[in-house]
C-alpha cells in the first residue's frame, strides 16, 4: 500500500513557487480523510495562510495587548431576564462578551439601577449546563438529541392526533409570561382552538388578584414614596427586589413615613421600617378585620367615599361586628392595643396611606384564606378612601398596542369555552395552572406545552405534579436549562437565553406608562437553539395553523408600535418610550373594574362559592401537632425562585453566607436544644431532609422559615443540585376553593436536631 505523502519544499519567500505536490490515489476513503470541517475539500491551508499560525502564548500576548486598547464595544437597550420585573438596561458587549450593564434611567422599574440578579444571571448565556439541541426521551427513558425537523414533525403529529381524538380542549399551555412568550404561546393555543392557557399565577398572585377583583375590580400600586403611612403584609421590597420600589421606600423613610412590616419574619426591609408587627402565619385576615372593626367602631372612615362608591356596606358592617381587636389578638397574636393603634394611625394618615397590595408574599397564594384576606384588605383601603389619592393606592394607567391589520396579522378565531377547570373556580381572576395537573391526572388534558415554566418544582407538590404529568400523551418543555418539569417531558426544545433574543415590545403600567424593548444583546451562541417566536411559528406551521404566524417578530413589533405612534427603530434607539399624555393624575376617583363600577364590600359570587358574602374570618386549613411548626417561605434578593440557582455567580453568594439555611426562632430552637449553625432534620408526611439552621430573634415562634429557591433535584444544574431543601416538597397538593391558589404555606413540619 503506497504511503500517501505530502512533500513540501519550503523555500524562502522570494522564490516560493513550489508548494504542494500531492500524490493522488484512487482510494476514495483517502479522499474522505482529506475532507475537513475547516478547510472543505481542499483539506489544506493555502500558502498565504501558512504564515498566519500563532502559538497560544503568542496569541494570548497579542490578544491581551489588543484587549487593552479600545476594542469595538457595541451597546444595546434590552430588558433584564433576572426576574419578571424585566428592568430596562443598556448592555455593553465587546468581542461577544458582556462587559458592562447600566440600568436605563427612563425605565419605571429600573430607574437607572439593576439588582444583584441583573448582573449575576447574565452569565447563564455561556453556562455549561445549557440545553444545546432539541431532545427526545427514548425508550429507556433517557434523553437524546434529535434535530428540529424531526422534533417539530413528531410533536405536531401528536398534537393533531390528540385534537382528532379528544379535541383541542385536551391541549394546554403553561407559561410564565415574557414579552414574546405571552403573545406567541396563547396565540398558538387559540389557533389550535384551545382556551387552556395558564400562567404561574396559581403559585404567585392568583388569590390576591382574585380577591381584589371581587371588591375593587383588580390590583393597585401603593404610592409608597408620597405616603404618610404604608403597611406591608408579608411583602418585602428589600427581598423581592425591584430597584424602583427600593428607591420609593427609601424616599418614604427619608420623608419620615410610618412604614409598618406585618410579617412573622423581620425581613430585610426592617432597615426602612418604623415598626415590625410579628404575626402568627396565616392569620393576616384577623388583623385586617380587627383594624377594620376599629375604624368602623370609632367612625374613623371616609363616610363620603363609602356612601358614594360602596355597595353592601351595611351588611358588611353587621357581619364584622364580632371581629373586634380583642378577638383578633387571640387569633393572630398581635396585641389588641397594637391593632387599635395601627388602625388609628392609618386613619390619621388617610388618604395618604394604604395597605400595600403585595405580590406573592402573605396572601398571593399561601393559605386557604388568602383570597378572603385580599378582599378584606381591599375593603380596608376603601374604608379610608385612599384610591388614586396622593400617597394612597393608585390604579396606574398602561398603554396597549392597537388592533393590527388583519391581513398581515390575522387573529385566530376566538375560542368559546373557558379554560379547563376555570368553571370550578368561580372567583379566580384567571385560570389556575393547578387545573392542568388535575386534568392530566383525570385524562381530560392529554398534551401540555410548558414555556419558561418549571411548574413541577415550584407551583405545588413536585412528586404529585410529576405523577400527574407522567400520564400525559404529550409533554413538551421549552426552556434554557433542564428543569424538574423537563424531566417529565417527552420533548425538550432549547430556547436561547434572554440575552440572545429580540422580543416584542413590553407595555409597562406606571405613573407615566411606557413601552420598553428587549433587544438582542448577544448573537445566538448555540446554533441549534431558537427564540420562542421561531419555536411557536415552527410548531404552528407543522400543525397547519401557520397562517396566523406568517410574519417575523420584528415585523410584528414594528406594527404594534405603529399603533401607538412609534417605530421599532425609534424604540431600539431609546430602549424605553413614555406616553406622557396618558400619565396618571391624582385625585380622579377611579372607575372600578367591578361589574357595576362600584366597590363591593359583599360579594354574591363569594356567597355562591361557599364563602361568607362579606370577607369575615376564614381560618387556614392546615393544623400541626403540638411540636410541629408551620413551614413558611420567602424570597432572597439574589435569586428568582429556582430560575437563577444554577448561575455560579449567584449560587456562590448562597454558599458563602449559608443563605440556604432555614430560620428558627430562638424560643423554638431552645425548646428543641438547637443552636445556631446546627444541622436539623425537617420532616412531615410529604417529605423530609436535613439542612443547617440559623437561630434568630428575627422570627416569630411557631414557624420555620425556609428560603424558597433551593432543593434543586436536577443533576444537570450542577451548581444548584442538592443545595438546601425545597419548600414545595413539604406541601400537600391542595387548590384554594373558589380562588385556585396553590396554598403553598398550608404545611406543618417537625424540626429535630441531627446528631
Amino acid at each position, binding site marked *: 500500500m503506497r504511503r500517501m505523502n505530502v512533500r513540501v519544499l519550503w523555500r524562502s519567500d522570494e522564490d516560493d513557487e513550489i508548494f504542494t505536490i500531492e500524490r493522488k490515489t484512487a482510494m476514495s476513503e483517502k479522499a474522505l480523510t482529506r475532507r475537513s470541517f475547516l478547510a472543505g475539500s481542499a483539506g489544506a491551508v493555502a500558502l498565504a495562510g501558512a504564515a498566519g499560525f500563532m502559538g497560544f502564548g503568542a496569541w494570548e500576548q497579542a490578544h491581551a495587548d489588543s484587549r487593552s486598547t479600545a476594542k469595538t464595544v457595541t451597546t444595546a437597550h434590552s430588558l433584564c431576564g433576572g426576574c419578571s420585573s424585566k428592568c430596562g438596561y443598556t448592555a455593553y458587549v465587546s468581542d461577544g462578551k458582556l462587559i458592562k450593564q447600566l440600568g436605563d434611567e427612563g425605565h419605571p422599574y429600573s430607574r437607572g439601577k439593576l439588582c444583584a440578579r441583573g448582573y449575576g444571571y447574565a452569565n447563564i448565556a455561556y453556562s455549561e449546563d445549557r440545553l444545546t439541541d432539541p431532545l427526545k426521551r427514548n425508550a429507556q427513558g433517557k434523553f437524546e438529541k434529535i434535530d428540529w425537523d424531526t422534533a417539530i414533525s413528531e410533536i405536531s403529529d401528536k398534537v393533531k392526533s390528540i385534537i382528532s381524538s379528544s379535541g383541542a380542549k385536551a391541549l394546554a399551555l403553561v407559561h410564565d409570561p415574557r414579552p414574546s412568550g405571552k403573545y406567541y404561546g396563547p396565540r398558538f393555543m387559540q389557533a389550535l382552538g384551545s382556551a387552556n392557557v395558564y400562567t404561574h399565577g396559581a403559585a404567585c398572585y392568583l388569590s390576591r388578584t382574585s380577591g381584589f377583583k371581587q371588591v375593587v375590580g383588580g390590583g393597585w400600586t401603593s404610592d409608597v414614596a408620597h405616603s404618610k403611612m404604608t403597611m406591608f403584609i408579608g411583602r418585602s421590597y428589600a427581598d423581592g*427586589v425591584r430597584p424602583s420600589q427600593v428607591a420609593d421606600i*427609601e424616599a418614604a423613610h427619608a420623608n419620615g413615613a410610618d412604614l409598618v412590616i406585618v410579617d412573622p419574619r423581620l425581613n430585610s426591609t426592617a432597615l426602612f421600617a418604623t415598626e*415590625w408587627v410579628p404575626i402568627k402565619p396565616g392569620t393576616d385576615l384577623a388583623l385586617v378585620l380587627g383594624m377594620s372593626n376599629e375604624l368602623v367602631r370609632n367612625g374613623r372612615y371616609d363616610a363620603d367615599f363609602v356612601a358614594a362608591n360602596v355597595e353592601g356596606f351595611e351588611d358588611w358592617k353587621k357581619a364584622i361586628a364580632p371581629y373586634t381587636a380583642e378577638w383578633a389578638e387571640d387569633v393572630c397574636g398581635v396585641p389588641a392595643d397594637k391593632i387599635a393603634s395601627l388602625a388609628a394611625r392609618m386613619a390619621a394618615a388617610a388618604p395618604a396611606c394604604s395597605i400595600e397590595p403585595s405580590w406573592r408574599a402573605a396572601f398571593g397564594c399561601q393559605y386557604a384564606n388568602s383570597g378572603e384576606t385580599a378582599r378584606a384588605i381591599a375593603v380596608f383601603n376603601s374604608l379610608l378612601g385612599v384610591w388614586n389619592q396622593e400617597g394612597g393606592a393608585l390604579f396606574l394607567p398602561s398603554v396597549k398596542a392597537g388592533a393590527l391589520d388583519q391581513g398581515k396579522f390575522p387573529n385566530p378565531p376566538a375560542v368559546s369555552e373557558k379554560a379547563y377547570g376555570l368553571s370550578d373556580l368561580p372567583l379566580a381572576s384567571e385560570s389556575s395552572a393547578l387545573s392542568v395537573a388535575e386534568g392530566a391526572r383525570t385524562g381530560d388534558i392529554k398534551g401540555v406545552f410548558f414555556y419558561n415554566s418549571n411548574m413541577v418544582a415550584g407551583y405545588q407538590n413536585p412528586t404529585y405534579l410529576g405523577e400527574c404529568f407522567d400520564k400525559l400523551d404529550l409533554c413538551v418543555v421549552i426552556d434554557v436549562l433542564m428543569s424538574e418539569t423537563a424531566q417529565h417531558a417527552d420533548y425538550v426544545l432549547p430556547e436561547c437565553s434572554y440575552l440572545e433574543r429580540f422580543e416584542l415590545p413590553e407595555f409597562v403600567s406606571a405613573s407615566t406608562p411606557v413601552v420598553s424593548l428587549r433587544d438582542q444583546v448577544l448573537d445566538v451562541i448555540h446554533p441549534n437553539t431558537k427564540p420562542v417566536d421561531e419555536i411557536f411559528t415552527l410548531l404552528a406551521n407543522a400543525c397547519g395553523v401557520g397562517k396566523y404566524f406568517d410574519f417575523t417578530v420584528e415585523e410584528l413589533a414594528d406594527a404594534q408600535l405603529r399603533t401607538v405612534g412609534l417605530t421599532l427603530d425609534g424604540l431600539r434607539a431609546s430602549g424605553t418610550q413614555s406616553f406622557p399624555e396618558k400619565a396618571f393624575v391624582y385625585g380622579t376617583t377611579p372607575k372600578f373594574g367591578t361589574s357595576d363600577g362600584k366597590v363591593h364590600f359583599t360579594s354574591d359570587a363569594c356567597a355562591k362559592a361557599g364563602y361568607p358574602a362579606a370577607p369575615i374570618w376564614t381560618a387556614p386549613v392546615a393544623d400541626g401537632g403540638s411540636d410541629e411548626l408551620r413551614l413558611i417561605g420567602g424570597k432572597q434578593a439574589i435569586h428568582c425562585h429556582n430560575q437563577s440557582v444554577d448561575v455560579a455567580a449567584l449560587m456562590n453568594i448562597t454558599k458563602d453566607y449559608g443563605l440556604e439555611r432555614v430560620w428558627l426562632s430562638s424560643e423554638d430552637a431552645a425548646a428543641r436544644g438547637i443552636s445556631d449553625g446546627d444541622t436539623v432534620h425537617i420532616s412531615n408526611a410529604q417529605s423530609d431532609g436535613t439542612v443547617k439552621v440559623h437561630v434568630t430573634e428575627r422570627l416569630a415562634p411557631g414557624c420555620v422559615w425556609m428560603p424558597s429557591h433551593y432543593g434543586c433535584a436536577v443533576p444537570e444544574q450542577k451548581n444548584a443540585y442538592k443545595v438546601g431543601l425545597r419548600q414545595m416538597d413539604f406541601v400537600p397538593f391542595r387548590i384554594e376553593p373558589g380562588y385556585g391558589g396553590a396554598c403553598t404555606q398550608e404545611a406543618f413540619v417537625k424540626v429535630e436536631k441531627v446528631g
Partner: protein
Amino acid sequence: MARYGMLIDTTKCIGCFTCRTACQRQNGLLDDEAFIRFETRESGKYPNVHVETVPLQCMHCDDAPCAQVCPTGAAHMGEDGIVQVDQDRCIGCLYCMAACPYQVRVRNSKTGSVDKCRFCTVSAYTSGTKMCTCVEACLTGARTFGDLDDPDSEISKKIAETGAAPIAPGLSKPKIYYVR
C-alpha cells in the same frame, strides 16, 4: 495629587449583594471571586430586634499593612492613594491576607494570586463615563466616593456632616468611612 476614599452608610444597606455582582461584571471577576464581603449583626431580643448589614472591602489604608508585609512588592500604594496588587509580581504566598485587619483580600482560584477592590470607580469619578461599580450600582446609594483631600468634595462634606468614622479603631489608617 488626590487621595481617594469612600463613605458607606450602613443605615441604607439592605444586604442585597448588588454591589458584589456589579463589581464582578465591571471587573470581569471569577464567579467565586468577591471583592466585597458582608457582615450581618442582629442585636436585641424578639420582637425588638435591630438588624445591620456592613459591607467590607479594601480600605486602601494609608499605612497599608498588606503592602508592608508583601515580600515581592506586588501589593503597593499606587498613585492617588489607591493600593494596587501587581498581578505579575504576586506569588500567592497569602501573607497580605494574614496581614489585612479587615480580611478583604481574596485568592484567585485559577491563578493563585491575590486581588482585592481596586477602587475601579475612580475612572467613573474622574472621567464621568458611567460604570456598573459598587458606588453606582448600589440601589440605595449607600456609597459615596471622592477625594478626601478636597474639602469641597461630596465625601468630605458628608464625613464632616455625619461624623463618619472607620469601621474599627486602631487597626490601620483606612480610607473607607462608615455611617452607622
